């Protein structure tokens, strides 16, 4: 039996104990992810794999223009559709990870299991518990983004024409986009009542994906200025355009500096809304 000794945390500075608690939370999440690696891989692979398979393998093999719409779409953009699709699929992979890693688990933890209560009792500020979720989600998003590359290399029947002009820009976009998607997941998970979390796919995820310049470059919307400028309130646009600028610059894209600026603005905004929502949910 133990003596009534103090725990190690009582003798250290607040900062050290915060860091250790934060590390402990990350460690736990990594440990659980490692154990559930199978479902995780299915989650990150299935969407890009099916998209590439149908749009860049099955369709190009179909006979006749009516049966092969992607060829015309791609021709309009001045490249093959595999190339148009690559940045978009990475953007979707990054965003879906944020929803799956933060929003859905949070809905369950707030609504059914209340597991979140034990995390909130950790010796670190409540906001840090929310930030840990965002950072862990970003790690998964980066992994999901990387998974798309080998698939885009092997699956399409026409080769993807991608080349990285600036590695620092690509890394900055992927990291910012991954954090942004985690913050989006946090915002959705804390603002949407747990019972209605099933609705977010129809109400949030589908609109921001399809109107997020994922399957077409932003410049292609110029035929309708209302639409072209309207979609700018959608943070996914900057993720897609950022990846387009970094990977397939030949397609035409927004200004790089503007993309980074908007990613930062949306990241800050969603972090603020998400963290405030999280605090409201756990502290009454």
């Amino acid at each position, binding site marked *: *039996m*133990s*003596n*009534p*000794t*103090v*725990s*190690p*945390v*009582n003798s*250290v500075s*607040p900062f*050290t*104990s*915060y860091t*250790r*608690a934060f*590390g*402990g*939370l990350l*460690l*736990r999440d990594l*440990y*659980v992810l490692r*154990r*559930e690696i199978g479902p995780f891989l299915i989650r990150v692979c299935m969407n890009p794999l099916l998209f590439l398979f149908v749009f860049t393998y099955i369709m190009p093999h179909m006979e006749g223009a009516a049966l092969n719409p992607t060829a015309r779409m791609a021709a309009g953009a001045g490249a093959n559709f595999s190339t148009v699709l690559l940045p978009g699929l990475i953007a979707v992979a990054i965003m879906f990870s944020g929803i799956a890693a933060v929003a859905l688990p949070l809905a369950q933890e707030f609504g059914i*299991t*209340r*597991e*979140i*209560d*034990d*995390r*909130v*009792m*950790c*010796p*670190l*500020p*409540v906001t840090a518990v929310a930030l840990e979720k965002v950072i862990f989600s970003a790690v998964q998003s980066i992994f999901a983004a990387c998974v798309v590359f080998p698939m885009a290399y092997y699956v399409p029947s026409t080769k993807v024409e991608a080349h990285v002009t600036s590695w620092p820009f690509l890394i900055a976009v992927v990291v910012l986009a991954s954090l942004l998607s985690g913050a989006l997941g946090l915002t959705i998970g804390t603002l949407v009542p747990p019972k209605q979390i099933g609705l977010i796919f129809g109400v949030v995820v589908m609109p921001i994906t399809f109107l997020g310049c994922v399957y077409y470059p932003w410049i292609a919307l110029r035929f309708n200025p209302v639409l072209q400028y309207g979609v700018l309130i959608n943070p996914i646009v900057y993720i897609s355009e950022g990846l387009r600028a970094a990977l397939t610059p030949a397609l035409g894209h927004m200004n790089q500096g503007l993309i980074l600026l908007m990613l930062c603005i949306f990241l800050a905004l969603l972090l603020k809304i998400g963290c405030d929502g999280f605090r409201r949910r*756990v*502290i*009454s």
Partner: protein
Amino acid sequence: MAETIVDITGLRKVYPGKTPVIAIDDIDLHVEDREIYGLLGPNGAGKTTTISIATTRAIPTAGTVHIAGTDVGAHPAIARRVIGVVPQYNTLDRSCTIAENISFHCRYFGFSSADAKARTAELLDQFRLTDRATAYPQQLSGGLAQRVQIARAIAHRPRVLFLDEPSAGLDPQSRIAMWEAVKGLREHGITVVLTTHYMEEADALCDRLAIIDHGRILVEDTPAALKGSLGGEKIYELKLDHPQRSEALAALLRSLDGVTTVEPTDEGLRVVAHARDGLLAHIVGMASEYGLRDVATSEASLEAVFIKLTGRDLRE
């Protein structure tokens, strides 16, 4: 005098809204080191809100809580180092086994991998959970899950453990096992603050308790002193055929020697009286003319104290 470890002063909590709800109305409370302290009261009395504020999960409208000298409202993250909490519901991490639940909790509180492992083994042994170490929370009965929650809550060696309705939903056997586990915490230097609406639990477990209703502390003392305050009074519950026509009987009963209070209940009348020979026969004799169906008497109990203070049953 022992050190005051939980110090609650002038605590008030109002939930704003169209009709603001006053959950806590000026509570002062002082718990000494290694005490087992109970908050006894009906549902909605303000017990859980008090514990939520003391454990940093709610912000008070007014007043302060100090735990082991740390102001909980001003430094919540630091205060959590000395607090352990077992909430009303099961918050175990469903993705981790019992042993992992405890060892990750240790890691959150800065234990090294080896220390966390050793502490987990120690707690599994102390709470007789070793053979369930690799089970998942979903596979446990309510009683076992509760024991795991207590083990996890004290894993980082807090000074105070807060238990919110610890025996809610437990069968009698698990409840007694849980009581034993809680009593055993004292020798590990842990102060316990618990809420309950079970008289027996408060009586069996607590060194001192506060009876709380409508957000206020009505009385605070040891269970023995509280029961003693009744001065040998007994409670007679009369069930009548026509409870709505009991005023005449009530007036008659009040005239009896030894009767202190008579008040109407849903089913008849509640008579509080100093026990003396022949009183029961008198009461029954009078009441039978008014359609007496049944009579129940109870000795000095915490329930009787509560009824005397509030005029209500705890379960009403």
